[in-house]
């Protein structure tokens, strides 16, 4: 933008930012409400994605660029896709059109409403926030960006960073173990070549009819029974 | 990362030449090498397709696309799509004689034709009046072209007939007609095979077509102009007018045929012991003589003699006999305008002398047959000459000692003479 500054620019930009904030807030809240109320679970997931987008935009508005992009990458690109996949894989065909809310949903409504109206709003509004003084005009404020985050992860937050990495690995392995447990039970589908070879071996076994030594048989059977039990 | 290919070549001699079988064995490719090879092949195709066309089958790369409306593949001669009719470039005469063979054989029954008739007499002539082919139902089997004895219907190479008017695909004779030169261009070797016989047959047919019948519609104007010009240049000969059909012409014709018969007889390797061809030739001569006589006598309408000269003798003989019989029958049916033919017109047994002549002669020795034929011819001539002309007597000399061929010739000559005389008499009487 250069160094060209005018009073109108600052004022107009402030108005613009306010308007943008209100738009994003409306987007976030509308999408969130639709997420929790809409009947179709796929629609709910899509509304959730819209809400994620609003949050990402809000991060960008708050000049947390890395967080905003990470929000889009992780939530929109990964988590929501994961959720959509889970929905597709667990489609409850008979129940999808049923009531989505629990019978006593009004109790579930009262608690958050009370929390919001009685606790959050009064606290937030009345608390005296100690905001730092605004930076002098013409000098950009010192905002920590991606490089500072990276440095922090390698220095003071090194341990949490590693723990998070382990957590992710564990979660990934755990998810695989939980979700794909069943695959081991599935019988392997043989290829044609394997089928042919198997048949050949069966014939070979049947043809050399002479019985093996009794000792060997005994060992084999014992092994087999041992394996079965 | 080299490709190790164990190449083993075996050679085999087959009926189609040497065949090389290359056993490449198992190629040992490292990871990704096959992919690179594939890329290289594709790039070679890409590069060559930018610069050259695929012309020879041995070529592996190059553009093979034929940009159809602008470029066309050369069609093989045997390519067939829809049938067309041929006509002679110079005379404009169509080759078709409306023999109905094609109409009969056509599997989807899309060929229709009507035979041309002489407008003066109403008699059919060997030409086609109208010819229709429904191209929209034609299955391009080519059977019509196979079966056509006159090589008049051939399969065309043209295939762009797409239209939204269905009825427009029923083509009439004018649309079907193509000059012979066109067919010669699209199928030179095929035409060269049949050219001579087809043209000869056409020559024969042309003689039996009066006026402009049998001339391709698109050539009519031109031919008429040509004829008018020819008439203006040389008025004296005045050929081919049916009224004139004078006796001397008929006589010349008969003589020519007799010569031909003689030639045929001579052509047989052993004339004396093998009598069959000879007596046939004799019979033929007799029949022709009868025909000539009949014509001269005054049927007076057409030059009916078929162009059977080139046919094998025995066939020709049979054909001649049949035609003679037909001619006689027709003459009888028409009520015989010539005065003197009343008696053989009234009694069927007498009405077909030539027809009678042929069958009994088969078993006879050659000379006898010849004589008999001569006699019968003479009789016919005599009868025809109703005025009771004397010269008929010299038409039947015994001629017993002569060789068969001579007898035949003699018979022919005599018959011709008789005919001539009869004609002269008739002309005289009419005048």
């Amino acid at each position, binding site marked *: 933008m250069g160094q060209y500054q*005018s009073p109108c620019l600052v004022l107009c930009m402030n108005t613009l930012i306010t308007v943008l904030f209100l738009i994003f807030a409306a987007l976030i809240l509308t999408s969130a409400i639709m997420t929790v109320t809409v009947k179709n679970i796929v629609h709910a997931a899509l509304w959730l994605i819209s809400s994620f987008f609003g949050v990402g935009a809000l991060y960008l508005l708050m000049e947390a660029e890395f967080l905003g*992009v990470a929000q*889009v990458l992780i939530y929109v*690109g990964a988590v929501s896709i994961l959720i959509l996949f889970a929905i597709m894989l667990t489609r409850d065909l008979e129940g999808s059109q049923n009531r989505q809310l629990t019978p006593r949903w009004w109790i579930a409504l009262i608690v958050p409403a009370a929390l919001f109206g009685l606790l959050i709003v009064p606290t937030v509004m009345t608390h005296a926030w100690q905001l730092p003084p605004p930076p002098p005009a013409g000098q950009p404020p010192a905002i920590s960006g991606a490089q500072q985050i990276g440095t922090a992860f390698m220095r003071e937050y090194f341990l949490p960073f590693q723990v998070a990495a382990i957590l992710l690995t564990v979660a990934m392995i755990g998810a695989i173990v939980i979700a794909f447990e069943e695959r081991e039970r599935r019988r392997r589908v043989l290829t044609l070549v394997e089928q042919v070879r198997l048949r050949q071996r069966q014939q070979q076994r049947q043809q050399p009819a002479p019985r093996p030594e009794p000792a060997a048989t005994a060992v084999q059977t014992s092994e087999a029974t041992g394996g079965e039990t | 990362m080299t490709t190790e290919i164990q190449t083993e070549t075996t050679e085999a001699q087959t009926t189609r030449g040497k065949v090389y079988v290359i056993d490449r064995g198992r190629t040992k490719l490292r990871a990704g090498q096959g992919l690179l090879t594939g890329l290289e*092949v*594709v790039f070679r195709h*890409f590069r060559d397709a930018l610069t050259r066309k695929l012309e020879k089958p041995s070529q592996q790369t190059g*553009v093979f696309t034929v940009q159809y409306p602008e470029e066309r593949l050369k069609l093989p001669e045997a390519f067939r799509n829809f049938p067309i009719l041929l006509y002679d470039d110079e005379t404009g005469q169509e080759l078709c004689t409306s023999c109905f063979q094609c109409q009969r054989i056509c599997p989807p029954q899309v060929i229709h034709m009507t035979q041309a008739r002489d407008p003066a007499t109403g008699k059919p002539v060997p030409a086609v009046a109208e010819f229709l082919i429904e191209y929209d139902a034609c299955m391009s089997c080519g059977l019509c072209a196979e079966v056509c004895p006159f090589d008049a219907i051939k399969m065309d190479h043209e295939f762009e007939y797409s239209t939204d008017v269905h009825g427009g695909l029923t083509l009439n004779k004018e649309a079907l007609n193509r000059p012979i030169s066109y067919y010669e261009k699209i199928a030179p070797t095929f035409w060269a095979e049949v050219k001579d016989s087809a043209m000869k047959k056409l020559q024969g047919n042309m003689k039996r077509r009066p006026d402009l019948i049998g001339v391709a519609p698109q050539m009519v104007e031109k031919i008429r102009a040509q004829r008018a010009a020819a008439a203006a240049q040389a008025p004296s000969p005045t050929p081919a007018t049916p009224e004139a059909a004078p006796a001397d012409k008929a006589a010349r014709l008969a003589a020519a045929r007799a010569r031909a018969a003689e030639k045929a007889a001579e052509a047989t390797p052993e004339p004396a012991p093998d009598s069959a061809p000879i007596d046939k030739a004799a019979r033929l001569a007799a029949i022709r003589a009868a025909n000539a006589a009949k014509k001269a006598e005054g049927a007076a309408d057409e030059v009916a003699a078929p162009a059977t000269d080139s046919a094998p003798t025995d066939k020709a003989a049979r054909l001649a006999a049949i035609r003679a019989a037909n001619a006689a029958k027709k003459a009888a049916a028409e009520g015989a305008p010539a005065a003197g033919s009343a008696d053989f017109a009234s009694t069927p047994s007498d009405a077909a002398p030539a027809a009678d002549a042929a069958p009994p002669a088969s078993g006879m020795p050659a000379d006898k047959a010849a004589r008999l034929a001569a006699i019968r011819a003479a009789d016919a001539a005599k009868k025809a000459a109703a005025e009771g002309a004397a010269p008929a007597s010299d038409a039947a000399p015994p001629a017993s000692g002569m060789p068969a061929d001579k007898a035949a010739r003699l018979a022919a000559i005599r018959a011709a003479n008789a005919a001539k005389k009869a004609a002269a008499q008739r002309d005289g009487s009419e005048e």
Partner: protein
Amino acid sequence: MTDILRSWIGGALPDWLIVLIAYLLVTTIVLFYAVGNFIMMVWAERRVVARMQDRLGPNRVGPAGLLQPIADAVKMFTKEDIVPRNADRWVHLLAPIVALAPVAMMLAVIPWGRGWEPVDLNVALLYMVAVSAVSGVGLMMAGWGSNNKFALLGAMRAVAQLVSYEIPAVTALLTVVILAGGMSLLELPYMQAGVPIMGATILCGDPAGCSPLLYSTITSFPGSPNEPVQALDLGLGWWVFTPVGFLGFLVFFIAALAEGERTPFDIPEADSEIVAGYMTEYSGMKFATFYIAQYILNFALSALAATAFLGGWQGPGVAALANMGGPWVHVAAALSAFYLLAKIWILFFVMIWLRGAFPRLRVDQLMDFAWKLLLPLALVNIVSASLMVGLTQWTSAQWGGLISLDGFAPWQRQLIAVLVTAIINIAAAYWILAINQRPKQVEWDEEELIAAS
């Protein structure tokens, strides 16, 4: 752009309006540029792949068939827009938009030429990756909203492929982040000045005797983060010429093929198996929107690959022209834009080439390829990239006294780093390929199988 506008119409309009107009203008130009390229790409793909198959391709509409895409667009416009009766109407409607919008957003951060950067985002690389992942949601919406089994299958395949190939792609891009020391795309072409392999490490000995046509001032390159130096600059110090960059480029480009659903990895829309994948139930302009999204995604990924590994707009002559100053800077900008475009098109040609050459992978081969080949290679490459940075930039203090390269000249350090990383990468690639090529043992439990049959 803002400055140019300001100089033209500075007094007439308020400042915020000029800024707005400038942004709108840049957006419009970039989008038109992308769509124009899309049109040319469609044409080029059909023509080139036709030549590869010994055909001619479309050549009827306009000279050499150049107007064929226009004709196709007109056809698309006039087609009926069909929505299946049982489809989820809104999802079905929104899916193409959700698929196209993020792809168009990717174009915002690419430096199209020297000084021609729409947006300078300091997390641009991550932004590209993140935004390209969003189009997966659009594909999922298309698949689910169509209420068609082929569409759903195609969408599941597409998204699974997108997600799994994002990992090697991001890992490959990480090498660039390590080399550049940041995620800004803007800086990348400047860092890839110099000569092949050596980069901008051949310094000028005598500042007075160095021609500005051959030497230019390098402010930010890995060898000298602090003070600007004069270095030999042919505009060819692309990272693809170094072992790290080469391996990273290969991995990223292959992953980009998969993300763009180009042919060796086109199972999401395998028309011989599942009609057209998630696009099955789309017609007319909605279908065209998917089509555009796909090509622009390829275009943007090619641009990203070119910028990250092939020097972006960097090329011979750009720096020299820029050093001449005055109006030549604009010529340099135009030349650099041409270089980037040429690189994008060469990459696109390679995509077409691969399409002409290779058959489609199976799903398991696809996953094997991503997880067993590309990802290990990318991970090894990260180690190499770190070594490269350490060997070329770190002081002995940073090494903790382990290695001391302080006495070497930059080009010597570069050479050492190239050799070391080359050895590591080649050995790793050989080893990983060998592991993957080891013939599989056919394993089964014979007793159980015999019992079963």
